[in-house]
């Protein structure tokens, strides 16, 4: 895979602009680079301003959390998107069925498709969820599937974010910024809108309301509070959905319901979109010292008095060790071949895999099973000898802690910098909403781009930026 040439989504492999980028290309050729540079600065200022105006930060803090934005959109044709979204839908459906099964009869384990210890010894598995039936049968109300592309038709799923995926506010802000800065581009291209995400989300969540709901469902967003790094996104989503943004100490159990303290007394909440981790959500059932959750909410949940989105215990589906079983999972539950491929993965807990990985560290990407944010991972081909030696020590001490994957030649999309257009590696996180009424995938998503030349790490904590992501109407 490493020897294949890198696929550029704008130029393909032929220096000929690919279909979805045709209009953009001719627009760009007619533009004065100096004007674009000014626009780029304008975009940064716009972000700083929204950072300050909405994201409840000061100028310095906004500076800190300012993720670089690139003005060149990442574009997909409607056909590409339809294909992709069929694969995403299939995968998300399988994830929900998998979660139901794991917390009920565990047929997939009985069938020998997943070893029992992968579930029983997994920290992300919540025994408290066994036998619980989430309202509407939905476990993952919101999913963010991380995808990478390596060729015209090759997409791989890198990660399934089934807990509380974040970043959707960037998707919305990026589009808003592009609309303000380059309205002419939207006249030349028919770009499918993403702006209805919050309204759609609110409707999707309301459709998952529990049986105890009386009248129109009351939705609320639960945040750990203003010191959380994603607080702005919580506030932003609550505001856009027109629902209350609550904290743990606003809530208590009243008459068997989770209720929020309003100026007119306690009012029951039907659907709680929580941005608080499982461990912290209920000090009576999980971590007793947590101040962020609601004591007893799990008991109400088990009794069908509230919908928690996403359901507790969904982490078992996006664990990196479980990831390697995803093709089996999709096949087992849907009876179909997976439409989206997994990246081949060595589970280093297995002797043969461990031996192979140990010998090939310099050409593999090695990740911690429970890690996230690009920390604690080794990118073999770009690491120094010293990095590899240091990593080897940790790795050999606890191989079960790691999985390894080949280094994919991620596709590139051009960014605009001092030298003009220049290719950089990207990934994509589309956002998916699940309700009994169906699976809704917002056309587009968050494109993250590694701004450093040749770098494959797109995480914002490691020098990554973002792009607006377009799906064309065709």
């Amino acid at each position: 895979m490493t020897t294949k040439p890198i696929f550029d989504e704008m130029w393909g492999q032929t220096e000929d602009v690919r279909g979805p980028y045709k209009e953009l290309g001719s627009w760009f050729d007619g533009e004065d680079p100096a004007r674009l540079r000014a626009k780029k600065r304008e975009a940064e200022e716009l972000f700083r301003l929204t950072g300050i105006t909405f994201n409840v930060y000061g100028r310095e803090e906004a500076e800190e959390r300012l993720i670089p934005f690139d003005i060149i959109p990442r574009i997909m044709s409607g056909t590409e998107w339809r294909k992709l979204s069929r694969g995403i839908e299939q995968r998300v459906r399988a994830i929900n069925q998998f979660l139901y099964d794991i917390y009920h009869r565990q047929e997939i384990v009985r069938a020998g498709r997943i070893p029992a210890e992968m579930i029983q010894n997994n920290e992300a598995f919540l025994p408290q969820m066994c036998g619980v039936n989430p309202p509407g049968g939905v476990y993952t109300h919101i999913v963010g599937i991380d995808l990478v592309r390596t060729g015209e038709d090759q997409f791989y799923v890198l990660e399934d974010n089934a807990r509380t995926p974040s970043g959707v506010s960037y998707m919305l802000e990026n589009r808003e910024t592009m609309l303000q800065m380059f309205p002419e581009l939207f006249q030349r291209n028919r770009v499918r809108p993403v702006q209805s995400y919050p309204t759609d989300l609110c409707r999707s969540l309301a459709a998952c309301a529990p049986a105890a709901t009386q009248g129109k469902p009351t939705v609320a967003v639960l945040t750990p509070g203003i010191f959380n790094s994603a607080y702005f996104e919580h506030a932003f989503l609550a505001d856009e959905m027109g629902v209350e943004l609550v904290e743990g100490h606003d809530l208590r159990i009243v008459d068997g319901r989770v209720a929020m303290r309003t100026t007119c007394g306690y009012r029951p909440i039907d659907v709680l979109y929580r941005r608080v981790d499982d461990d912290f959500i209920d000090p009576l059932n999980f971590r007793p010292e947590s101040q962020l959750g609601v004591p007893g909410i799990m008991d109400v949940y088990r009794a069908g008095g509230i919908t928690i989105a996403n359901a507790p215990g969904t982490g078992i589906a996006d664990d990196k060790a479980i990831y390697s079983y995803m093709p089996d999972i999709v096949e087992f539950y849907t009876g179909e071949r997976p439409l989206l491929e997994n990246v081949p993965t060595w589970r280093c807990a297995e002797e043969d895999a461990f031996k192979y990985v140990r010998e090939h560290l310099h050409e593999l990407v090695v990740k911690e099973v429970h890690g996230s944010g690009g920390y604690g991972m080794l990118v073999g081909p770009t690491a120094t000898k010293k990095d590899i030696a240091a990593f080897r020590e940790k790795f050999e001490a606890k191989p079960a802690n790691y999985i390894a994957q080949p280094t994919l030649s991620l596709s590139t999309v051009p960014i605009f910098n001092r030298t003009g257009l220049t290719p950089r590696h990207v990934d994509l996180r589309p956002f998916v909403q699940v309700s009994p009424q169906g699976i809704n995938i917002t056309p587009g998503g968050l494109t993250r781009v590694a701004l450093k030349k040749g770098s494959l790490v797109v995480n914002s904590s490691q020098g990554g930026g973002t792009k607006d992501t377009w799906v064309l109407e065709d």
Partner: protein
Amino acid sequence: MLGRTANGLFWMYRYLERAENTSRLIETGQRLALTRLGNSDDEWRPVLQAAAMDQGFEAAHDSLTRDAAIDWMLRAPGNPSSVMSTVSMARQNAREVRTAVTEEVWEATNGAYMAIKALLSRKVSDRDLPQVLAAIRQRTALVRGATHGTMMRNDIYDFMRIGTFLERADNTARILDVKYYVLLPSAMSVGSSIDNVQWESILRSVSARGGFRMAYGNAGSARDIAAFLILDRRMPRSLAFCVGKILDNLGYLINDYGFRSEAIDHAEALAGDCLHTDIDEIFDQGLHEFLQDVLMRLGLLGRQIEIDYRFAG
């Protein structure tokens, strides 16, 4: 609305009002110190008292100097009522209630915080003090203007207004009390020429010199000033005006929510017992006793509002 949101709105505006009042008090103290002979450091004791910052100051300092007093009131992190502390708290509360306020209100509040933080990043020199104090008042006025111009007139606005006027009434009562009690312990000296400067300083500290002159001319007595600041409903910092506004807004909440609060009983009693009277009666009763009674009732009113509208768990 969440009780926590009501709490955040109420305190956001109390803190903004307090920051503004503190800056006015410093200005008055500075002016008083500059226009009088003798040991000007002593002038700062009553100013600290008026701001209810004297005890905290004494606990943190061995002796009272003008510089230390100003710094304590403006910047001290150890003083929860210093301008810097209150502006930070106002902004903190604004972040908590970000979804309840308009973009313009948030921007004005955040802008006030950033500007004031920059101005107060180091000790303020004598030369810069007037501009710094003016900037603090302009910044808080900007928040008030954005509030007035962009906020819906609903329960959110009611809690903002109640916080504002409760703080303001408290402040006016304290200023009056300190000046009367500390500077004029003997009723004999009321109306004598010595205290004219003092009384005038009171008017200055509530930005009411012009208004007073308009209403009473240049020959107003101490008694007139007290009447003006306690009973005059035209004067936006008088007790009667502030309590009237609190009553209005509590009334709107009752209409809006459809249940009567106990707080309105407190506010009505405060208005009926203390403010439907004339200044002679107040002086007969004793101005200090009167003001202490008002301050206590304001405190109880504030607590009752917190209970009625479930500010805390």
